[in-house]
C-alpha cells in the first residue's frame, strides 16, 4: 500500500509547561483533538482533549501543566512507512494518532486514523461509482453501446 506521506500534517505543538487551560484553547483555535508536547526542541509526548478534560476537571485544577497528563513516550513512525504499517502501529498501541519522524529522528508531522479512514472511504466511494457505471453500461442495449463507443 502507499506511503503515509500524503496523510502527514504539520504537528501542532505545545511546550510541556503549558497549562491545561491554554492547551485546551490551542485545541479550539487549531481545531485539533491532540497536541504534541515538546521539551525544548524535542517532541516528548502527546496530549488529547480527553486527557485535558479528565485531568483538569477531576483534579479541579486546570492551571496545572500538560506534563501532568500527557502520554509518554510519543508513539511515532518513520515518514517512509506504509499506510498499513502506520495503522498496525496504531492498533498495537491503541492510539488514533501518531507522530511522524524524519530521517534524523526529528518530528516532521502527525498522522491520524480519521484522516486515513476518510481517504479510504473516498476511494471506496469512487470504486462504488465505477461499479455502478459499469452496471449501467452493461444494461444499455448493445447496438447503442457500440454507437456510443465508436463516438468516444
Amino acid at each position, binding site marked *: 500500500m502507499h506511503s503515509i506521506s500524503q496523510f502527514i500534517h504539520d504537528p501542532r505543538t505545545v511546550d510541556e509547561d503549558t497549562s491545561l*487551560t491554554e492547551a*485546551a484553547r490551542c*485545541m479550539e483555535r487549531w481545531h485539533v483533538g491532540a497536541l504534541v508536547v515538546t521539551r525544548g526542541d524535542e517532541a516528548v509526548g502527546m496530549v488529547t482533549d*480527553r486527557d485535558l*478534560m479528565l485531568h483538569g*476537571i477531576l483534579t479541579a485544577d*486546570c492551571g496545572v501543566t500538560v506534563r501532568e497528563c500527557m502520554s509518554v513516550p510519543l508513539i511515532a513512525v518513520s515518514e517512509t512507512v506504509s499506510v498499513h504499517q502506520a495503522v498496525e502501529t496504531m492498533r498495537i498501541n491503541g492510539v488514533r494518532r501518531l507522530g511522524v519522524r524524519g530521517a534524523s529522528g526529528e518530528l516532521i508531522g502527525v498522522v491520524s486514523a480519521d484522516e486515513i479512514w476518510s481517504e479510504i472511504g473516498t476511494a471506496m466511494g469512487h470504486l462504488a461509482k465505477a461499479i455502478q457505471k459499469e452496471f449501467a453500461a452493461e444494461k444499455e442495449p448493445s447496438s447503442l453501446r457500440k454507437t456510443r463507443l465508436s463516438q468516444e
Partner: protein
Amino acid sequence: MSKKKLEPLDEVISVPHDASIYEAAERMKREAVGCLVVESDEHLPIGIVTDRDLTLRVVAWPVDVKATPISQVMSSPVECVLEDEDRSGALNRMCALGVRRIPITRDGRAIGLVSLDDLTERLSADMGSLSLGTAGKLARARRSEHREEIAREAEALLKELGSRLRRANWYTRKHFLAELDEVREKVDKALKGKAL
C-alpha cells in the same frame, strides 16, 4: 449497507440534568465513554455532552466544576434516531448534523447510542468479509480453471492411450507406463495446488 433495524451498538450512559460537571466527568471516566446523554426529571434526553465539549467549554474557560450543573455546558436539544431506522439513515443524519454520536430512542427515552466509530467498525467488518469472499471466489475459480485444464489434458491422454492400447504391441505398452507416470505427476501437482 444493512437495512436491518438499528441495533443500539453502545450502551447509553445518562446523567440527570442537575449533576455537576465533576460528577459527569467522573462518570465518563468510570464508564470509559466519551459521551453522556443528559436527562430531564422525566428521564427524557434533553442534551448531550462529550469529552471534547468539556475540554473546550470547561477546561478552556474554567468554572467551579463541583457547583456548576452539567446542563450549563451540554449541547441542547439533542438529535436522536428512532430504533427502527436503518444504519444508512443514522449515518445520513450524522453527516447532516456533523456529529459522531446519536442516541437511539424508543418512546422518547434513550435506549442506546450509535457512534461513527461503531458504524465504521461494522462497515469495515462488512468490507473485510466482502474482500475475503471475493478472494475466496477467485481462488476457487482459479482452482477450478486449473482442474478443468488438467481434466482436459488427462482426457486427451487417456484417449490417446486407449487408441494405442487397442493396437497393443510392446512399444505401446512401454509408452503406456511412461505416460501413466506423467498423469500421476500432474495429479500430484494439482493436489498440491489445491492444498495451497
